[in-house]
């Protein structure tokens, strides 16, 4: 690439600059479009809002500067010097504009948005032409624009959360942090009203598990570091378990829940992945194909909702069959069951990748050396699977911590971190408290991510590059296969029953009380739910298009271009994936509620929240697609003097259509089923289906809720099946893994 760049036409010493166009756009939008707003609507047009009447001094300066730049760009001038001028004047204008908005707190208008974006493009052109950055104008401008968006819509909101937790009414104070962390809602261990001492029991559990950890670590080799690490891990786990069982409060409850859910989910995921690869029965593979779709098409908390009917106090299994009238479901148990159902397919998709990466040749070699199946598994298969297992385990922990819908419906009296963020803001109206909870949750999730990096490091455990080599896996021992199949069959039966109960519930008068057949709920749904469903689909669709395009661009920049801050851009754009939805929701409402970036109360903020939530999936999909395309194609295009924008559009875009299509469909589907990040953001005229569903369920309109869930499940299923049909036309398979 470096060789090619020198031969580009832009390297000659003088000529016109393409900067005239962005300069002109900025000029015109400043002249004709509103600079600021008085209200939430971006479509306000009023002479008083033009920059010349709102900020005459700034306006005249900007307009004069831009006029000079337009003229200068159209003349034949030395490239390098003019490039420096473009960068200098452009940055000054950009900073002045942003500075004015930030200091006055006037919400930005369409004109400001367009002008500032155009200025960034102009700076990009200047950077490229002056040779400060060795990329062509398109790439440089794209880097600047995407960095701005990532900064504004991911980094800045998260920063606001951190700020709100320690910066109260303009004063730095730790008092809120102290009062929240000290409150019984966060951690409560000792209960003064019980005869026994909870603290003592928690301490005992902590010590016991710490010892167990140390002993286990010592078995692998008596080194001090190892033993201490084992002891430390044991102590932490022990405290979580102890405080989760004997104490209460959001922190121990959420951690304890994650510790229950993660191993079970990972285990089930492994079972499914092994079965898919090695089972002799055909039904197994077919049913697993359906399993992998479920998490995508199911709106959140629908499982929770169905579980109440089977395991609730008067549930079909617990009440009618077993005759129990227990409160068993509401609390950690219920949330754990619902999460296991919801997250197992996710773990399966992750583990499927690492199971398929195994090379059968190793196992064959081991068998040839007369190793029994068990030692083969222990010595060959297991070590190769470990990184995949760790990834699935940690991802499940994150999902469990971030989950909002299930604890909301089944949490009972326990508090959870993700719901407490919501309740602090909506129930107690304390944005600072919500920010403290958000910070804690975000911190935990980042620690888990860091653990994953530490644990797995950068070592590659893939045994072969590309597709697995020849050879066949030895089938599982018969007894093992039977056991695993039974597990799958039971799981499948439970899932079928849960889904069936939702379909059934949508067709009867009152579920469980009056089981006569009716279409009433669907009639209600057409009146009340349909407009909301359509609106949701509209917002999700817009966000899916933007997420895919921006994701495509960022993926291209990150994986194909070299520039300063590339890693930061990648991490920044992935950050929203790691951030729990409720935290992102709170962050958006704190960051975009007043001041220059006022966006709350509009549909735009919902679209933005969904875009930046779903973009990482699109980025990863495109990156993996790009890694399969040889760079020589792009180099050929560059040699033919196409700028990188043309290469992107005419070479890479057609080749990546399957990935982009998949990215778009998954963004759409995830947008339709999102709840935690958008529950704060609904506004008049922008009601969303999942929020309405939650409200119906909470108020007892269960039939209508079931009808809505049914319509959503079938609608999304249809969309996904359509995607498969279309991508088959393109002759390439689409991978689901990237989207999860």
């Amino acid at each position, binding site marked *: 690439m470096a060789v090619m760049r020198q031969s580009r036409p832009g390297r000659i010493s003088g000529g*016109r600059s393409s900067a005239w*166009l*962005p300069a002109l756009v900025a000029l015109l939008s400043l002249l004709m479009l509103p600079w600021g707003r008085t*209200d*939430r*609507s*971006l*479509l306000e047009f009023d002479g008083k809002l033009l920059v010349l009447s709102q900020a005459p001094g700034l306006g005249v300066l900007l307009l004069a500067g831009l006029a000079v730049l337009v003229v200068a760009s159209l003349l034949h001038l030395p490239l390098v010097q003019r490039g420096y001028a473009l960068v200098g004047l452009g940055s000054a204008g950009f900073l002045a504009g942003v500075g004015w908005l930030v200091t006055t707190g006037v919400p930005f208008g*369409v004109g400001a*948005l367009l002008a500032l974006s155009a200025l960034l493009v102009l700076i990009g052109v200047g950077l490229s032409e002056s040779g400060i950055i060795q990329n062509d104008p*398109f790439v440089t401008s794209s880097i600047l624009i995407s960095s701005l968006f990532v900064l504004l819509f991911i980094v800045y909101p998260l920063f606001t959360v951190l700020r709100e937790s320690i910066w109260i009414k303009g004063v730095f104070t730790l008092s809120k942090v102290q009062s929240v962390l000290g409150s*019984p809602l966060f951690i*409560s261990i000792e*209960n003064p*009203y019980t005869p026994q001492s909870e603290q003592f029991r928690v301490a005992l559990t902590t010590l016991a598990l710490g010892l167990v950890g140390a002993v286990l670590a010592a078995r692998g080799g008596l080194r001090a570091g190892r033993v201490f690490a084992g002891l430390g891990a044991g102590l932490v786990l022990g405290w979580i378990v102890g405080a989760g069982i004997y104490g209460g409060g959001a922190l121990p409850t959420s951690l304890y829940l994650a510790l229950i859910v993660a191993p079970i989910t990972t285990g089930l995921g492994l079972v499914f992945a092994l079965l898919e690869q090695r089972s002799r029965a055909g039904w197994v593979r077919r049913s697993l194909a359906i399993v992998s779709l479920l998490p995508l098409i199911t709106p959140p908390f629908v499982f929770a909702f169905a579980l109440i009917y089977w395991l*609730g*106090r*008067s549930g079909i299994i617990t009440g009618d069959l077993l005759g129990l009238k227990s*409160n068993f479901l*509401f609390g950690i148990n219920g949330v754990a069951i619902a999460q296991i159902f919801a997250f197992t397919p996710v773990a399966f998709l992750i583990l499927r990748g690492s199971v398929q990466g195994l090379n059968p040749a190793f196992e064959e070699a081991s068998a040839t050396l007369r190793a029994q199946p068990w030692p083969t598994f222990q010595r060959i298969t297991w070590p190769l699977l470990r990184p995949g297992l760790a990834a699935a385990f940690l991802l499940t922990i994150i999902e469990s911590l971030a989950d909002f819908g299930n604890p909301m419906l089944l949490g*009972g*009296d326990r508090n959870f971190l993700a719901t407490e963020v919501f*309740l602090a803001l*909506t*129930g107690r*109206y304390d944005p600072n408290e919500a920010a403290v909870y958000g910070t804690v949750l975000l911190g935990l999730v980042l620690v888990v991510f860091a653990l994953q990096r530490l644990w797995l490091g950068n070592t590659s455990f893939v045994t072969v590059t590309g597709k697995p080599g020849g050879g066949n896996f030895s089938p599982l021992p018969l007894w093992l296969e039977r056991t695993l199949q039974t597990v799958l069959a039971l799981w499948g039966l439970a899932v079928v029953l849960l889904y069936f109960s939702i379909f059934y519930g949508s067709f009867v*008068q*009152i579920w*469980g*009380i*009056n089981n006569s057949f009716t279409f009433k709920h669907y009639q209600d749904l057409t009146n009340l739910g349909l407009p909301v469903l359509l609106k949701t689909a509209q*917002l999700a669709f*817009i966000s899916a298009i*933007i997420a895919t*395009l921006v994701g495509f661009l960022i993926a291209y920049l990150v994986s194909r271009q070299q520039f300063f801050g590339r890693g930061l851009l990648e991490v920044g754009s992935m950050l929203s994936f790691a951030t729990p939805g409720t935290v992102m929701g709170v962050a958006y*409402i704190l960051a975009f*509620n*007043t001041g220059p970036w006022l966006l*709350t*109360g*509009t*549909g*735009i903020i*919902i*679209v933005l929240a969904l875009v930046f939530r779903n973009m990482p999936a699109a980025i990863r999909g495109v990156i993996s697609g790009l890694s399969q395309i040889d760079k020589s194609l792009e180099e050929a295009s560059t040699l033919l003097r196409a*700028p990188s*924008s*043309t290469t992107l*559009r005419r070479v890479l875009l057609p080749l990546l259509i399957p990935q982009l299509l998949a990215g778009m469909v998954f963004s759409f589907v995830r947008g339709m089923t999102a709840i935690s990040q958008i529950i704060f953001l*609904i506004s*008049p*005229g922008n*009601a969303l289906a999942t929020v*309405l569903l939650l*409200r*119906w369920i*909470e*108020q*007892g*309109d269960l039939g209508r809720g079931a009808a809505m869930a049914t319509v959503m499940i079938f609608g999304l299923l249809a969309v996904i099946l359509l995607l498969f049909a279309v991508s088959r036309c393109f002759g390439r398979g689409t991978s689901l893994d990237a989207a999860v």
Partner: protein
Amino acid sequence: MLMRKTNLRWWLFVVMVFMSSGLAQQKVVNVICSVTQNWCEALGPAFKQATGIEVRIVSVSTNEALARLRAERANPTFDVWFGGTGDPHYEAFKDAITEWYRVKAYGDLSPTMKAAIGTTYIPLYQGILGFGINPKVLQDRGAPIPRCWKDLTNPAYRGLIQVSNPNTSGTSYTMIATLVQLFGEEEAFNLMRGFHRNVAEYTRSGVAPRIALGRGEIGIGIQFMHDLVEFKKQGFPIEVVAPCEGTGYEIGGLSLVRGAKNKANGQAFMDWAVSPAGQQVGFRAGIFSLPSNTKTPLIEGIPDPKDFKLINYDAKKYGDPELRTRLITRWTREVFPLPRR
């Protein structure tokens, strides 16, 4: 040069897509609605038919509504706050988030409701606190039907009661305030500690206990009677009981948001909402709370205050944010953590 133009077209396209979601404005009123979803949804079409003004509604719980109005006070999205327990409406007025507007039908509104709240917000309906019971569940347990607040401490009801959590629900705060007014603060907290053992779960939403009650998961739900009547009419096997010592009530509120963008439309909506025609919309949506307009013809099934022993609920004293916070904090520290099993 040609290339730059097409790039720009891409960016323009992206910006256009962005903007297409901010739809054009017309004659509208933005309402934040804190009554049940059915009622909220019925308001829009009825008002549009009556006046031609479009109603855009967001329905959230009362506390959440207050939270949003407070967050947006500098730049409100909403014009009118419809429904929900009175205390948050009172608090919103005190904090200058809402303003008082004398609706056209003010003269026809119930004098007792007006007297209780003064000129802080417009009374919309009255809801009376009571017990919902599921007779079959109680019978299976061999437990008697509760008649009084003090009956709730009976160990026979272990795990059979649901009530909402005052940290998230206005209904539950109405119960605490009622008990404090009935028995005095110390005895009220003793009573709540007493039946705390019998509570299966403190729900998030004030309406929620009726779901478990209707399904026979619990035997007693403490909430507003009109929500129970609505559920009973839908066919759930429940009955409604008024406590013998007397009971409290809420005066559901209607407030004009201070600094509303569509103030005239908001006022028109408020005028309509307390007119007989507007109040009957609730009936059609299956709502059984007592409407504030005395001229509204009642339907059968509405719990009439004349049939119950009502306390003289001091809405001003107990709507005070400071007292409210103190009582809720006390409950959270002294009642909630008590062991139940």
